[in-house]
């Protein structure tokens, strides 16, 4: 089914991106997807099929908190906000990701 031209996201990376997107302030699901899309220079597309389960999981883990609010076009929307716990998780995940991507790049830069 995955016919998209955008790369598949690694398991766990989506959490990192969501938490990163929420750092600036509370956002609803749609704008989280949009933020990621824009920040990646339109390289990444987050499908709602993976976005919302990831949001619910993060909420259950206590990394983000949800609250109903009113959107910019005056509609009821669910806003997500990063928690203290989420911030801790974010820095830890970022650390892991940095090490991983540096490692992968190093490997790929050299001939075996």
């Amino acid at each position, binding site marked *: 089914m995955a016919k*998209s031209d955008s790369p598949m996201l690694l398991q766990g990376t989506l959490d990192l991106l969501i938490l990163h997107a929420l750092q600036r302030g509370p956002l*609803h*699901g*749609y704008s989280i*997807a949009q933020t990621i*899309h824009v920040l990646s220079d339109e390289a990444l*597309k*987050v*499908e*709602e*099929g*993976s976005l*919302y*389960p990831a949001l*619910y*999981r993060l*909420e*259950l*883990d*206590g990394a983000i908190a949800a609250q109903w609010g009113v*959107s910019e*076009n005056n*509609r*009821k*929307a*669910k806003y997500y906000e990063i928690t203290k716990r989420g911030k801790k998780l974010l820095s830890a995940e970022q650390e892991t990701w940095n090490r991983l991507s540096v490692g992968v790049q190093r490997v790929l830069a050299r001939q075996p």
Partner: protein
Amino acid sequence: MHRLFLKLFRRRSMERDVAAELAFHQAMAAAQGNPIPMGNATVIQEEARDLWRFTFVENLWRDVVYGARSLRRSPALAATAVLSLGLGIGINTGIFSLAVEFLLSEPSVTNARSVVSVRMGGSSHAKKEVVEFVRASGLFQDVVGENEEAYINWNDGAETRQIFAVQLTKNYFTALGVPIAHGRGILPQDPDEVVVLGNRFWRTRLRGDPAVVGRAIRLEGRPYIVVGILPADYRSLIGFGYSPDVYVPRYLDDTILALYARLKPGMTMGQARAGVAAVAQRLDQAMPEAFRYAEGIQVVAVGGFDRIKSETEMQTVGLFFAMLLIVAGLVLTIACVNVAGLLLARGSARRQELAVRLSLGAGSGRLVQQLLVETALLAFAGVAFGLMLRQGMAAAVEQVQLPLPLPIRLHLTLDWRVTLYAILLAGFAAVVCGLVPACRSVRQSIAPNLRREGRMRLQRGLVVGELALSLIVLTAGVLFLRNLWRSNAISPGFDIRHTIYADVNLPPQEYKDLARKRLYIGQALRELKALPGIESVAGARVIPFNAGDRFMTGLKLADTGKTVRAFFYWNAVTPEYFRAMGIRIARGQTFPDDTDAVTRTVIVNRTFAQRYLTDRDPLGRTFLWGDAKTPYAIVGIVDGTKNLSIGEDPQPQLYEDLARIDNDRTRIAFVLRSATLPGTQLQAVRAALRRAEPNAGLEVATLYSSIGLAFLPSQVGAALLGGIGMLGLMLAVIGLYGVMAYSVSRRTREIGVRLALGADRRDIARLVLASAAKLILIGSAAGLLCAFFLVKPLAMFLVPGLRPHDPLTFAAVAALLALTGLAAAWGPARRAASVDPMISLRYE
């Protein structure tokens, strides 16, 4: 934690939220003409739901419901399993309750952990002044004293009886914080004539009337005001279920007291010990005695593990219970293996169901879980049944009046420890009897070509294991039965079949005078001798097995001038004693009648002569006892008796004439030799003694019943282990029967073919019996091998002369197992032989 909280409280709103949120997302995307592809809304909702659910718990619940339904479809299996497990768990928890009561129960006082028993000078009891001295030293928060083995005469208006009293210091109840059911405890400012009643005494002798508080009862001829009644579950400081009838302030001047103290807050046992040592040194200066208080100091906790650590008798009791628990655990294992066998058979019947579920995509882990849940259901039903059994056994044990000269009441309550133990056992049972069959069923279903596992190797293996275990258990049981037999056959050294024993407790106030006591003894002997059917009557200070006074002293022999240090059991008796008790006088004679002779006379037993008087003929020799001026002459040598337990080695004994000793006691025993059955004479004996002194407390019984204490350990051991052993055998034989019956039913077709081809029916029966015999043989061999090593430590509980490695025991056990096993296989063999070839060929 966070997850659980959210799940519990926000679950309801979750579904609604998801739908609304997705709608919003779609609207936004549509409004912006966004190219981000739409997912399937239903899938997202389902995923969200999965995330929010207690998946594990919900699956478990479904398994429970399903398991209960499938067990209801095979009630015979469920009943057998619950019965086996229930019996196993019941007996285990029952023994565990006994162990808890004997070993770990704490006395009914507030904060029992801070109460210690104190011994000084190596003696368990001390004078009242010593108790006061320790209390005045301020070392402890408080110090109390009690004498727990006193008898007191109680007059109920019609008759005087001896009852068990505890004499105590008046601060006892307040310092220890003893709970009271009605009224109050004794207070320090109370007068001397107050009494607190034991619950059982109050219920059985005073009809449980709460209005008795404030009234008086007559003790030792004086009115004592009842101030309070103890609760039914009261546990005394001694433990072991010892439940005296009444608690009174110390009323005899010469009563010595056991010391108990409450530690100050934060005080350690080490500090207490050091403190007691210092106090004892000052005590030695203040009240010099022949011994030193500062020696032999013991400070011991009154309950729990600390007590086990510091008392060797408790360790022996502990080891006995450990052994019992191991044996009972083996029985439970047999029960579990039994159930495992049943489930295996059922598993092969359910193979189809499991195969269907597997092919529909169920994980094999989930199926194992499902099957384990079914076993757990059985195990918990087994626990419920087992605990019911335990309640029944506990009630029975609490009702049983042990044949003991002491008031023992056990409180086998179902407390948290017992419940926890039962639950642990259930878990053990579920895993043992469930895991193997469950894994196997699932594996077989995955590989259907393994289906014809015709020989049922695993089931047979289980039965062999069961038989081996039951043989071990039976060996222990038979050993203890032989022990009982053996100890019954050991002669105590006197006649217990024709003898009546009377214990008289004279009112101490009226019998302070020695001459009055002697007068009474003479009159009582005359009254008893006049009874028809009584051949011989004697008085004695103590009767063997009920008490034993031991002396360690120097005897200075007049003829050689040498002093021998002798250690012997001492008793004072009237001349007729040896005839009444049936003790043979080997040489010499009994005490002469002339009471005014200068020389005092003694009789010794043969062990005494052999150990201390080997240099010359002992008869007629005289010696000086300690510092006394009067010489003692040996006038007779008798065969010895046992003193305290039936299994003991012969001990030196020395008898004095009861009429010549300085008798300080008001308690006298009489023994009567009856020409007829002793049980029929008890009433007449009681009446005769009543005539001699109406106000004395009386206990009259056959000697056989009153020396029950001596036989108790071997009886209890035999009853418990024999019972457990029989249960183990029964369970193993049921298992064998089950496997044989199942294998016959599976081989019906084969047997039909054999018969159709002309096999003799007797051969068929022999075939089945032979395969059973093979299982029994292997099981016995394995069991004997294990038993040989495992029963070795049991030697410490057996009478001397009975070795645990006695070949006779092993032979008896193996024969018993073989016979019952073959008997169990007989039914299936008969059924196999009676198979109708026509029907069996059409079968399947």
